């Protein structure tokens, strides 16, 4: 079993009246609420937390891409990955990921991932999310009507740019390049592992991952039932291809809180969940479905749920701590409790990679580190053995440490 540490890098200082004055935490939230000086302090604090996760034994650090988003201050995951590449030496750096359809030309994404792979000594995972409508269509103006086609084209171009030894011409619909010949090339050959994060049920994503042998990442943030349905769908596609499922081809993300006791976990951490929920509950629905973002198949898969929700509208309410635990959208409590919850989660889903969300909303630095350390010291050892009879083909394959040059920290006396 592999354990990874995710940071969303949220803004923790929204005023109490935020939702009275803003319809959404995305796209058009009042940017005057952002304080750049405090933002700088936060970036360093958040990066410190991620570096700490390497020190205490996590296998990977996860960065992601959001735009114009109060809860995701990482428009460029590459920049954070670059910072982490210099300050870490062992962990995988998992880009989960770059919204490749937004890069024009997409060779820019191929180049930057290759740069990071080289800089980190081959520790990069390339995550290729489709991206949300908020990020891609509304904030970045990408046309939803042909967005999936662009995504596929950019995917194909990036893969070829990494692998084709020759200069080639790319005559696509989105991109035309007479000379593709990127420098540098990735250390990991033929290319870094590719992970595809999916939010919700999308049979198209299952097929995409199954056909290409990519890692499928599902989120437990909507509860274990939804995550189970998503992962079951993916494994069914793998089995349909006559392949024995390997748990390491699946990853699940979960919000995790570890304290000395179950009560302490709730008492100390619950207020920080309320901060996130209060601001994201009932977010502006107009951002959720840019026309064309779903295919016809996707619309039909989603439509029944939309119609059910419309037929039975219920006022949104922030779930209680116990409701979160019951739904499985949170793993929290003593090390023993969390071990039990996560063992159930990863075994049910047959997931070999667990992505832990240890920081949320306005959670303090100390609480974040405390939970992280307890998890590393008391939960990881109890779960590490899971799936030990399978080989992990979806983690990076870094070069040997002696080949990799560490940053020099003391250059005094150099002329």
């Amino acid at each position, binding site marked *: 079993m592999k354990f990874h540490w995710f940071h969303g890098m949220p803004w923790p200082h929204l005023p109490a009246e935020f939702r009275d004055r803003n319809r959404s935490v995305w796209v058009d939230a009042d940017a005057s609420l952002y304080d750049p000086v405090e933002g700088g302090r936060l970036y360093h604090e958040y990066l410190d937390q991620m570096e700490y996760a390497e020190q205490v034994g996590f296998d990977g650090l996860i960065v992601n891409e959001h735009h114009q988003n109060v809860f995701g201050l990482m428009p460029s995951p590459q920049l954070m990955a670059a910072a982490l590449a210099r300050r870490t030496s062992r962990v995988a750096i998992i880009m989960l990921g770059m919204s490749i359809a937004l890069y024009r030309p997409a060779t820019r994404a191929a180049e930057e991932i290759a740069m990071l792979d080289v800089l980190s000594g081959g520790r990069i995972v390339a995550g290729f999310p489709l991206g949300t409508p908020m990020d891609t269509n509304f904030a970045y103006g990408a046309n939803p009507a042909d967005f999936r086609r662009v995504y596929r084209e950019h995917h194909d171009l990036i893969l070829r740019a990494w692998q084709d030894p020759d200069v080639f011409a790319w005559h696509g619909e989105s991109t035309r390049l007479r000379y593709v010949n990127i420098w540098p090339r990735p250390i990991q050959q033929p290319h870094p592992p590719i992970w595809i994060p999916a939010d919700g049920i999308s049979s198209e994503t299952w097929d995409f991952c199954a056909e290409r042998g990519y890692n499928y990442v599902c989120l437990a943030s909507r509860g274990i039932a939804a995550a189970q349905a998503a992962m079951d769908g993916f494994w069914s596609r793998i089995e349909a291809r006559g392949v024995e499922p390997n748990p390491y081809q699946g990853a699940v993300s979960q919000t995790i809180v570890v304290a000395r006791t179950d009560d302490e976990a709730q008492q100390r951490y619950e207020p920080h969940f309320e901060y996130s929920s209060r601001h994201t509950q009932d977010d502006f629905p107009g951002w959720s479905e840019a026309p064309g973002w779903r295919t016809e198949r996707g619309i*039909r898969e989603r439509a029944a749920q939309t119609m059910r929700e419309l037929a039975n509208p219920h006022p949104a309410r922030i779930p209680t701590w116990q409701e979160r635990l019951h739904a499985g959208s949170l793993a929290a409590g003593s090390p023993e409790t969390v071990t039990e919850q996560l063992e159930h989660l990863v075994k049910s889903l047959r997931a070999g990679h667990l992505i832990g969300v240890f920081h949320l909303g306005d959670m303090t630095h100390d609480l974040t580190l405390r939970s992280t350390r307890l998890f590393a010291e008391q939960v990881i050892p109890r779960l590490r053995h899971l799936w030990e009879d399978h080989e992990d083909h979806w983690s990076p394959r870094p070069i040997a440490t002696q080949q990799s040059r560490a940053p020099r920290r003391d250059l005094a006396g150099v002329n």
Partner: protein
Amino acid sequence: MAELQTLDLTPGGQTAHVWQGGDADSPALLFLHPITGIPRWGEALEALANDFRVIAPYQPGWGPAKDDLPGVRDGLDLVLFNVDLLNTLGVGSAHVVGVSIGGWIGAEIAAIRPDAVQSLTLVNPLGLWSESHPGEDPFAQHPGFPTAVLFSDPEKRNELLMADRDPMDAYVEELLDLRASAKFLWPIPDTGVGRRLVRIDTRTLIATSEHDNVVAHEMGDIWRAAIPGAQSVQLAGSGHIADLEAPAALADLVRNFALAGVTA
């Protein structure tokens, strides 16, 4: 009685799904539908068919032509599709009526093939952008009722667009029609037609609806000023989808302007 036909077009080779109604000897009228496509042979088309030979195609990407969207890249492709349709039907020129996104397409046809257009009526046309009058974003809407903003009253979506149809099919078509519209209007409905409007030398009427949330009535003045000799009027009581909300008034407007040159 009107019928929905499937035609192979020459010389372009596209397939057209087209409603036709009215007397074959009446003056030809090309109806260019709005964002919401053509949910049925409705009141507006029926009323127009009293005076015209009505030709009402689904533009590539809408309704039964949903799978044709990847084959069209821009406004020129849409112009050629409609010109090929007239050609295939043996119609040398027609009165052109465009509602909403159809207004943009009509203006493109008139600018590029003035010989094919006898008169031009643009109702709540999209395709020009004014920062001062942006209107509501038709693509940032609740997914449960995604076109409600296009009507003067959200309930009219149920009544005029969704009624008498299979709910799932109607909903899927509604979203796919929006997808087709987004292909040309995302993220800002500036199609570039503004550079070509000066070329229009056809009699032109711009109509804006009183309760259009998407195309502000000031946009009617901007269109009128950009098209030489154009006139403008307001349609009382209607939202953006005027062919569904004000079918009789729309048909009267078109009949009076196209056949008699009257704009009152």
